[in-house]
């Protein structure tokens, strides 16, 4: 199931900007920034839990995109390229600030309140988020990341696998497990779902 019209349209627009960028068009860089900065910032923050670090990494990604535009490959899926560059930049920064390596980092992350918890605290009145937080707490970090990449960032399983350096099958299974957990959890919250439906439609 690939190649729906909605897909190719977005990709076409990206390809035009990409070609213009390689040709030295600053506006094309600006347009790419406008299209992707928000979701990249969300993703970056999700990885490192630090807004400043995420911001710095995104800045690096876009600055490098411009400085090394001459050596960019003309045929890439732009969105995936940006996610991949951001992830690489962040892991590099995180390794630099935490000399003990990535395993240690994962333990540290466990000890601190998750980024989600912080956002929800900052969203004072939102009952909805509270409910979602409860559902999310049944998911592992990896599952949360996959869910977010799939539904918030609209990446394909294939791309998520490449991004996280996992096998496609592993990503598929992770996604299925996560959805399964969410569904079980949400049977209880059926009423709440109805409220959500009303809000959306």
């Amino acid at each position: 199931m690939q190649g729906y019209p909605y897909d190719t349209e977005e990709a076409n627009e990206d390809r035009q900007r990409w070609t213009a960028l390689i040709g030295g068009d600053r506006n094309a860089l600006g347009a790419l920034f406008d299209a992707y900065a928000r979701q990249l910032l969300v993703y970056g923050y999700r990885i490192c839990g630090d807004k400043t670090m995420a911001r710095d990494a995104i800045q690096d990604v876009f600055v490098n995109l411009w400085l090394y535009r001459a050596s960019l490959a003309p045929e890439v899926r732009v969105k995936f390229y940006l996610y991949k560059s951001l992830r690489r930049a962040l892991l590099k920064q995180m390794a630099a600030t935490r000399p003990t390596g990535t395993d240690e980092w994962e333990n540290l992350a466990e000890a601190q309140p998750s980024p989600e918890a912080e956002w929800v605290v900052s969203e004072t009145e939102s009952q909805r988020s509270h409910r979602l937080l409860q559902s999310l707490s049944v998911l592992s970090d990896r599952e949360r990341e996959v869910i977010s990449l799939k539904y918030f960032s609209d990446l394909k399983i294939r791309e998520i696998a490449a991004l996280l350096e996992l096998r496609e099958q592993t990503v598929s299974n992770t996604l299925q497990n996560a959805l399964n957990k969410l569904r079980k959890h949400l049977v209880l919250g059926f009423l709440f779902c109805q409220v959500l439906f009303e809000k959306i439609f």
Partner: protein
Amino acid sequence: MSDYLTYEPEDFASDDFFIHWVKSTDIAAETFWQNWLETYPFKRPAVEAARQLALITQNLPEPHITEAELDALKESVFNEIDRAEPVRRPIWHYLPKWAAAACISALLLAAGWFITRENRQADASYPQLVARAAEKYDLIEVKNLTRAVRLVNLPDGSSVILKKGSMLSYPTAFDKASREVYLTGEAFFEIARNPEKPFFVHANQIITKVLGTSFNVHAYPHEQIRVSVKTGLVSVYKASGDDAKAAQSGHSLKGLLLSANQQAIYAGDRIVRASATQEAVSPVNEAVMTFEYEERPVGEIFAELEKAYGITVVYDTTVIGKCPVTASLTGEPLNEKLKLLCKAVRASYETVGGKIVVSGKGCE
């Protein structure tokens, strides 16, 4: 397509075509899935469960990111590029030698003229104010180059309506003792009351200090600076004078005091009171920024807010649009206005994707 028959809710929910259907209003997808459901009605519960899953996963809590943050980031990207980019080959490279000499001397002349001109303006231009403030605070800069008005929500809940061609810088978090912002151009301020933390607007050569009120500052470069007060009490003083130090510290108001409907102008190095008739100052503000209502349908009030703040308010016109409201909201920050209005019609509001979504069960 027949493999959909074997799908469980989780399979549907992770299928790209299915997600596309749930998310969009694409006719082709809608037709396909409706037909499919008619053919295989026993799959309806699974599809419904999958729909809910796909919807729920799209509403995961995400960190709140403001337009201002993104603008600031974009600007720093381009600043960084300008710094790193090797300088382009200057134009006189292509000209004969004598022409180069002529060009350079002309440039020097021009530069000299600009420098002396800048010096005359003291050191209070917006870039300098911001550069100095940046040593003290982590600043966010918001520009409004194209829109008629642009709403800026400050960290303390105050609202600023930034007019076209204006820039505002403010700290990501205000410090304990005061709230300071930096303006070039024109803006209308509605300050959240907080007597403990006076609010300062630095605009070119003048500073406006308030404790909680609404007022307009007009300070485009090379135009006369004007401050007009809508509600409450403010003081205006020169950034360089003796008043500056005294006013900066205490909670009392020094300098030229202005109360509601009064204006001050900065003329010939002095701040003077201007009578309302003398100035054709922002009649737009005076008319638009008044929010007094008696038995008005809340829908009409929302429409006025949309216009004044350049925002979009989403609400059910049939359920709450007609609810009558009597309220005096002039001078309140936008968030405060919305809170009061929602209270009046027993509704609640949240900000979703830059829009204000009001939901309630109606007033009767």
